[in-house]
């Protein structure tokens, strides 16, 4: 990889200062992720996976160290700038879906575009297309409570995709799904990756991680192992 990586983390540290003691969630992460990689992040509970995802997703800022995204340093940005980066560069998929319960699938998917200032017509068009990509063209006007868990997560994926982000971040996206549905969702991620999408996913299940082409293991807030697998 000669060109600069999509994501570059140098000595990334995140500390939480609680009353007297300091909790070290991340202690010097060195990591580079290139465009169109499919990376799984593994590690025991409390090893800093979610914290890392939050920093990469621009929801959190590091205490020390650098975070470069697409050639710009994100680590020192203001709140508003971070919001813009989240809106344009990041697509989030959460374990608990986090859909707005009273909004239709279509409106949920339109949300990022509302904050991007896209026109209503363009929003509708892009949101429908994103829902088609995850195989939910026929569920656009359903509300979350009218959808199965797998379908809800597809809506969430469509919402993450709709802004055409540089990277798709998923923190245990199958954590709330049964194994059959999990495989379906993983198939969606696989398909998106094939289409060129960069994917970064946290999981603690080996068979889910097996879908990724590279597995990074965290331990106590540092990268413990980083292995690239050749696709079979």
């Amino acid at each position, binding site marked *: 990889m000669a060109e600069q990586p999509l994501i570059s983390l140098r000595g990334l540290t995140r500390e939480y200062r609680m009353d007297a003691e300091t909790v070290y969630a991340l202690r010097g992460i060195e990591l580079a992720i290139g465009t169109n990689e499919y990376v799984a992040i593994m590690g025991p509970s409390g090893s800093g996976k979610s914290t890392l995802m939050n920093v990469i997703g621009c929801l959190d800022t590091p205490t020390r160290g650098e975070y470069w995204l697409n050639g710009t340093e994100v680590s020192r940005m203001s709140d*508003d700038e971070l919001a813009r980066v*989240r*809106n*344009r560069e990041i697509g989030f998929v959460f374990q608990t879906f*986090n*859909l707005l319960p009273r909004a239709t699938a279509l409106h949920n998917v339109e949300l990022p575009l509302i904050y991007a*200032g896209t*026109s209503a017509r363009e929003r509708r068009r892009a949101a429908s297309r994103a829902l088609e990509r995850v195989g939910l063209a026929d569920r656009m006007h359903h509300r979350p409570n009218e959808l199965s868990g797998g379908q809800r997560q597809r809506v969430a994926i469509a919402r993450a995709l709709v802004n055409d982000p540089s990277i798709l971040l998923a923190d245990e996206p199958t954590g709330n799904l049964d194994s059959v549905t999990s495989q379906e969702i993983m198939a969606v991620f696989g398909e998106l990756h094939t289409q060129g999408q960069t994917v970064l996913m946290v999981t603690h299940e080996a068979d889910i991680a097996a879908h990724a082409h590279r597995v990074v293991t965290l331990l106590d807030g540092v990268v413990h192992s980083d292995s690239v697998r050749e696709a079979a």
Partner: protein
Amino acid sequence: MRLTNLAEGAMMAMDAIRSQKLRSALTILGIIIGVATVMSMASIVQGIRGQIFNTLEVVGPTTFRILRFFSSTPLNPDALPREVRIRPVLRAEEAEAIARLPEIHYSAIWVGVFERLEYEGSRTQPTVVYGADERFMEILGGGITAGRVFTSPEARSGAPVVIIEEEAVANIFGQINPLGRTMRIAGRPFRVVGVYRKPENIFQPPGQEISAIVPFETAKRAFRYDETNSLIILVKPREGVTVARAMDATTVQLRRMRSLRPGDPNTFDMITSDQILDVFNRLTGVFFLVMIVLSSVALMVGGIGVMAIMLVSVTSRTREIGVRKALGATRREILWQFLIEAATLTLVGGAIGIVVGLTAGEVLKRLLGFETGVPVWSAVTATAVSVGIGLAFGLLPASRAARLDPIEALRYE
């Protein structure tokens, strides 16, 4: 960008209202009451004001009045202050002398009393009966629909003749033709010579409708009246003469008749239509102030209700706020969305308040028996005020929402 945000905020608000109908209704009740109060009062005051204008228009904006003593509230005739007692009572001769001035078109002394009209079995409530001259329509407007006005000899001699107003005719005579019949006012017999119709849309405070006109001389002999509050000389300048010039000439004439020396103060008061309007405006100003204070209290209560419901709304939607932030909403955008949600709530309350207030105002005006248009300015103000309340009281909850940390918000159960 701000526009899509506005739509999103309004949608959030409608959503919140729909999902929490009762809670929302209670919340905006204060706003509804506040706005409705102001609206109905504004509509009534506007109605009365419109009619006073109308009345002054009929009377003629140049007409002025001479009183023994001008006070915006009636004086107690049994306990007159010294400054009033030292003034002479108005006399018919004074009105006649003023009428002879070249600047003056009309001048006559009138007396207004409050008496019941009776005919055989039927009797009205006490209503206004004027003792005036045969040219009274120069002041009152309107016209004679049957019979005639009294003649000058009748007026001069104090003949027991009366002109009855149309509605009063219907009240006491029913279908009977009143002309030539003898009826009673204050127990004394009067012969009906004419039927009078009032001009359209004239101001008559409830219970003070004009029901009969008799010659001044007749009234003076037949009725008991109070010489301070009930007597008035009405003066209308000749065309082309300014009110100021006519008033000067009148003042000179009256002072001469009362043998006042230069330097002596006037022993009468003279007021113009403008002054009457001023008094009315001052009274309604006070009235309005009271209404505004009262409705402000209701609006405050409404505002605090909105603040409370918005705080609850922010807490119960913490996760939603986290999601919106994760998807790229800035603090400012979250702030505006909640502000717009609050403003939409109060705007809905304000709109309902306007409708309720106007309806109540219409009903009251119907009951009081006059009609006017919708006071547009008060509807505009009410709308602006209710939106303002939403923005003001929504600020705290909205800024609380805007300040939420996205990670904690997303974790919130």
